[in-house]
């Protein structure tokens, strides 16, 4: 089962056992076969990908050291790609063709990756189900009537369906671990500042981070090594040295202290998810990890804090969509006046979907005169308390474990009428974003109905290595990662 991992494919290309072109053709064929069911892609870049693969095959000597040589990769459609349409799944950017590449795209291509397309996501990454895409939702490869999660739903679905062994997502409030868990793949949200966001279409700047979806933990380490590190183009990227993440994968978790916030995970979790979580903890303990009870007393407030901070920042970030420099422009309705402000308002009315409007409205409200202290400032103060909870826990443990999601994938449309119910599903993922901590989801089982379940590990700032080490050791002792949905093998 190693042939469709990044490590396996790149190794085969480097030794000349396989060509990048043949691997790319297979990925595109699988994409074509599954796309009518999954709708995982907004844009397929077949010609661009084949040209790129051919270029790698023409000069094999140049790629002898390339960690991702010839590896097909799917990019979330909020990462700018020069000359390749980038929409953020929004009508307002339907025709946008970026004049530059995101830093992660440059780094991935320099490492040998071949971009096969841009994946479907919630509009401007706002959502947990991919249903807020202007192009309609992507679907879960394990159950086509269910969500692949969000906001990076298409990326997780493409990874699970065997189209691309590496997919790139972005994460503002759990948009990598959550879809990874419910699509049965590995997802890693790095520490805030670990990966450059230059060229990522901004949602909430104090929370956004970019990270990989892969089939194995080792592959996540390989991709993170390729994309991490300081970038002068992103003032929030940190200068911290990038360790060789793959070296952390010793298979040994003896002595690792894993914190379990029993108070947080004790209630409101689906029975099968809770059981899989307990079994995963037992497996880690069997391998020599020490389980330690920890308390995160302010974690239950993470969702209200998140929806105030994220919407406030979004209302500011999305002010740039004004119908002037790029994207769509809609003339004002008759009677609204022919002038510039009327054009802004009608363009944004036509260009944004309901969830984006709702969040811009909420964010504008909480920042407006008279409400700032009660909502936004208060949320930032509780954010400090959430951070302190984690600081205190990490004095005693090396990582904190919890289920990635309280339930397996829900049905498309299940929460459509009630945005708040949808938000509550993010209870275990948003606190890592608020605290800027790395978080990793690794498959840890299936429901009786065959839906994947994820184990989430949250680590200290800039300690992705511990998460990767623990998750890799867990993965070696289980076979969950080898399970594939039927759609991946046909």
């Amino acid at each position, binding site marked *: 089962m190693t042939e469709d991992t990044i490590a396996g494919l790149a190794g085969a290309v480097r030794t000349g056992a396989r060509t990048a072109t043949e691997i790319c053709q297979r990925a595109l064929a699988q994409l074509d076969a599954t796309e009518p069911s999954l709708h995982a892609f907004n844009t397929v870049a077949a010609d661009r990908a084949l040209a790129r693969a051919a270029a790698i095959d023409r000069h094999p000597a140049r790629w002898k050291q390339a960690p991702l040589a010839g590896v097909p990769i799917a990019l979330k459609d909020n990462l700018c790609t020069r000359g390749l349409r980038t929409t953020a799944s929004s009508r307002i950017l339907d025709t946008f063709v970026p004049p530059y590449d995101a830093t992660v795209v440059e780094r991935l291509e320099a490492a040998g990756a071949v971009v096969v397309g841009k994946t479907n996501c919630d509009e401007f990454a706002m959502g947990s189900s991919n249903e807020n895409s202007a192009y309609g939702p992507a679907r879960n490869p394990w159950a086509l009537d269910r969500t692949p999660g969000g906001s990076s739903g298409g990326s997780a679905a493409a990874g699970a369906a065997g189209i691309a062994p590496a997919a790139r997502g972005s994460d503002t409030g759990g948009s990598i671990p959550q879809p990874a868990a419910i699509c049965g793949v590995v997802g890693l949200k790095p520490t805030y500042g670990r990966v450059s966001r230059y060229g990522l279409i901004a949602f909430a700047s104090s929370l956004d981070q970019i990270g990989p979806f892969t089939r194995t933990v080792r592959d996540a380490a390989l991709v993170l090594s390729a994309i991490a590190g300081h970038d002068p183009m992103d003032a929030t990227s940190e200068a911290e040295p990038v360790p060789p993440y793959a070296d952390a994968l010793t298979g040994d978790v003896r002595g690792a202290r894993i914190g379990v916030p029993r108070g947080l995970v004790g209630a409101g979790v689906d029975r099968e998810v809770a059981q899989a979580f307990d079994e995963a903890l037992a497996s880690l303990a069997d391998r020599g990890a020490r389980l330690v009870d920890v308390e995160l007393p302010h974690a239950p407030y993470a969702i209200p804090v998140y929806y105030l901070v994220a919407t406030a920042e979004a209302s500011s970030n999305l002010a740039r969509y004004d119908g*002037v420099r790029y994207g769509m422009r809609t003339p004002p309705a008759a009677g609204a006046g022919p002038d510039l402000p009327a054009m802004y308002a009608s363009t944004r009315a036509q260009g944004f979907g309901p969830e984006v409007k709702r969040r811009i409205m909420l964010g504008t409200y909480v920042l407006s005169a008279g409400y700032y202290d009660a909502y936004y400032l208060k949320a930032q103060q509780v954010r400090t308390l959430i951070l302190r909870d984690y600081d205190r826990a990490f004095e005693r443990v090396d990582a904190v474990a919890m289920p990635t999601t309280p339930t397996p994938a829900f049905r498309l449309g299940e929460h459509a009428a009630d945005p708040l119910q949808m938000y509550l599903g993010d209870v275990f993922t948003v606190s890592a974003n608020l605290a800027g901590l790395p978080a990793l989801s690794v498959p840890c089982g299936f429901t009786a109905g065959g839906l994947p379940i994820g184990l989430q590990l949250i680590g200290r700032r800039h300690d992705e290595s511990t998460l990767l080490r623990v998750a890799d050791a867990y993965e070696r002792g289980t076979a969950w990662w080898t399970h594939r949905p039927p759609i991946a093998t046909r």
Partner: protein
Amino acid sequence: MPAQLTSDDVVRIAALANVTLDPREIALFTRQIGELLAYVEQLQQVDTAGVPPTASVRRGAAGASADRPDEVRPSLEIADTLANAPDADRSQMEGGFFRVPRVIG
């Protein structure tokens, strides 16, 4: 805390946010944003006296300045930039302009 959100509030916020809403959206958002504000009300239970706000979790700022020398560097080509414009005048000898509707009456 503020009183119940009204449709007038929603119309006022929409103007601040530069979004035109139709009557159906005004009614929907009045209800939904009102529910979200009621939900976040639980934060008032948390004692935050003396707690500083967190605007950014970035901690490397002290050690690594984000400043750079103020030097002229290459930027995007004007033609590439205007290629995405919904309306532009590309004929000008200086390279062209974005075109916008009337700004002042």
